[in-house]
């Protein structure tokens, strides 16, 4: 095992600002916000590429100018391996592979080495629809060609010991020996209680969560993680997720991937309900991301 200490980068998921994007915040506003926090990298979504899946050369130039101006590097591109885009039975493997290739090319064009690849799920635990191995395996040579790593997101209520993680995803990695498929471990999987204001929300079940030490075995297959949070207090502490403990394990085990702040507070569900709620979102969302970045800086020391 590599015992050299890791040096993760601090980054931000543009998703955190989604309630505001295109309403009170332009893409450049979001880059300025991220710059202010001292983050050095970011997660983008395919949906935030104007004219997706065919961005104009002018937009691509603008994108790189923003990265340069605000000193931010591309980390991860969130995309979807959709195989039910049409009525009736699912799509063929070849159709899904074409869809994936299209996003791999875009990721490569925009400088992303990691992908958050969402595979079709069939229940709240995100058990994958049977047959996913077939199209993902066919896509591996293209992931290699375009130098991208598909990452399955391990998202609450999924844990690192949910059976499909080991029995299907890890088994797939070991069988194919691929370096182009792995895990985005969302820190929500370590959350042990509901955040302030979210106690009554239906997704709040914490009977079975991932223990911090479980992350160690998965670090070799992870390139970027969603540093999920729902509330950071004024002392820059996330009160529901054991951040210091998990990050220490990552560093001690040599992990040098990207920690991407992903805000999912309660406001995201009701920001559009009225002027007061939207006003609250305009203040709360950027402030929470800033607090979270200060928290990460305090833990990492940079």
């Amino acid at each position, binding site marked *: 095992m590599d015992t050299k200490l890791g040096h993760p980068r601090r980054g931000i998921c543009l998703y955190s600002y989604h309630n505001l994007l295109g*309403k*009170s915040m332009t893409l450049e506003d979001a880059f300025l916000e991220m710059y202010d926090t001292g983050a050095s990298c970011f997660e983008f979504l395919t*949906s935030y590429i104007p004219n997706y899946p065919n961005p104009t050369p002018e937009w691509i130039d603008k994108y790189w100018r923003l990265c340069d101006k605000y000193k931010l590097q591309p980390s991860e591109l969130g995309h*979807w391996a959709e195989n*039910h885009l*049409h009525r009736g039975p699912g799509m063929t493997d070849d159709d899904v592979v074409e869809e994936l290739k299209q996003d791999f090319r875009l990721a490569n064009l925009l400088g992303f080495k990691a992908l958050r690849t*969402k595979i079709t799920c069939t229940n709240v635990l995100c058990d994958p629809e049977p047959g996913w191995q077939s199209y993902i395996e066919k896509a591996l040579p293209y992931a290699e060609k375009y130098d991208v790593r598909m990452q399955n997101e391990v998202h609450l209520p999924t844990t690192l010991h949910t059976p499909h993680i080991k029995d299907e995803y890890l088994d797939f990695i070991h069988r194919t020996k691929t370096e182009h498929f792995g895990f985005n471990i969302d820190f929500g999987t370590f959350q042990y209680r509901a955040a302030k204001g979210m106690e009554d929300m239906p997704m709040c079940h914490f009977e079975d969560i991932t223990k911090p030490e479980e992350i160690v075995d998965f670090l070799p297959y992870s390139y970027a993680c969603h540093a999920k949070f729902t509330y950071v207090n004024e002392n820059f502490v996330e009160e529901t997720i054991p951040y210091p403990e998990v990050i220490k394990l990552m560093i001690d085990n040599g992990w040098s991937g990207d920690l991407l702040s992903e805000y999912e507070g309660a406001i995201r569900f009701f920001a559009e309900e009225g002027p007061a709620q939207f006003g609250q979102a305009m203040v709360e969302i950027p402030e929470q991301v800033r607090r979270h970045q200060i928290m990460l800086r305090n833990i990492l020391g940079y």
Partner: protein
Amino acid sequence: MVEFQTIQQRGFHNTYDENGEIDGFEFRFVPKYYKGYWFTQCRFGNVTVDGEVFDRDSLIFEYDGIEYTREEMFDLNKYWQFREPLIYKIKKKGGLSIGYHDVSLQFGWVLNYNGSLEAEPDGSGLGNMAHMFGVDHQRKMLLCR
């Protein structure tokens, strides 16, 4: 930039036929979801204005300058860009009166994320994401022309 509400007041007005007579009204809709959709993933429901129901199959949707019916959307290989309004065009002789109107609609989508697959594989339902994000949208809007 669009308004923060899903049903947009900007763009809400009566429409006119070739003879200059009011033949209906239109408004714009922007989903609040964090991402865009392929139109084939979208499931459009009815529109209700002041209690009058306009069936989903009587609606005309305009996107990027081209008009479609709900049925045509199922085969439309086009991506509904994030924060790009879709225009709802509704035929109603004489249109709506000047003043306030209660506008509501149902909209859902198919995305295979943290839930079961679409229960209505023929597309007749409102998709499979209602458990997380609901399907109902309403707004009181002021019509001036």
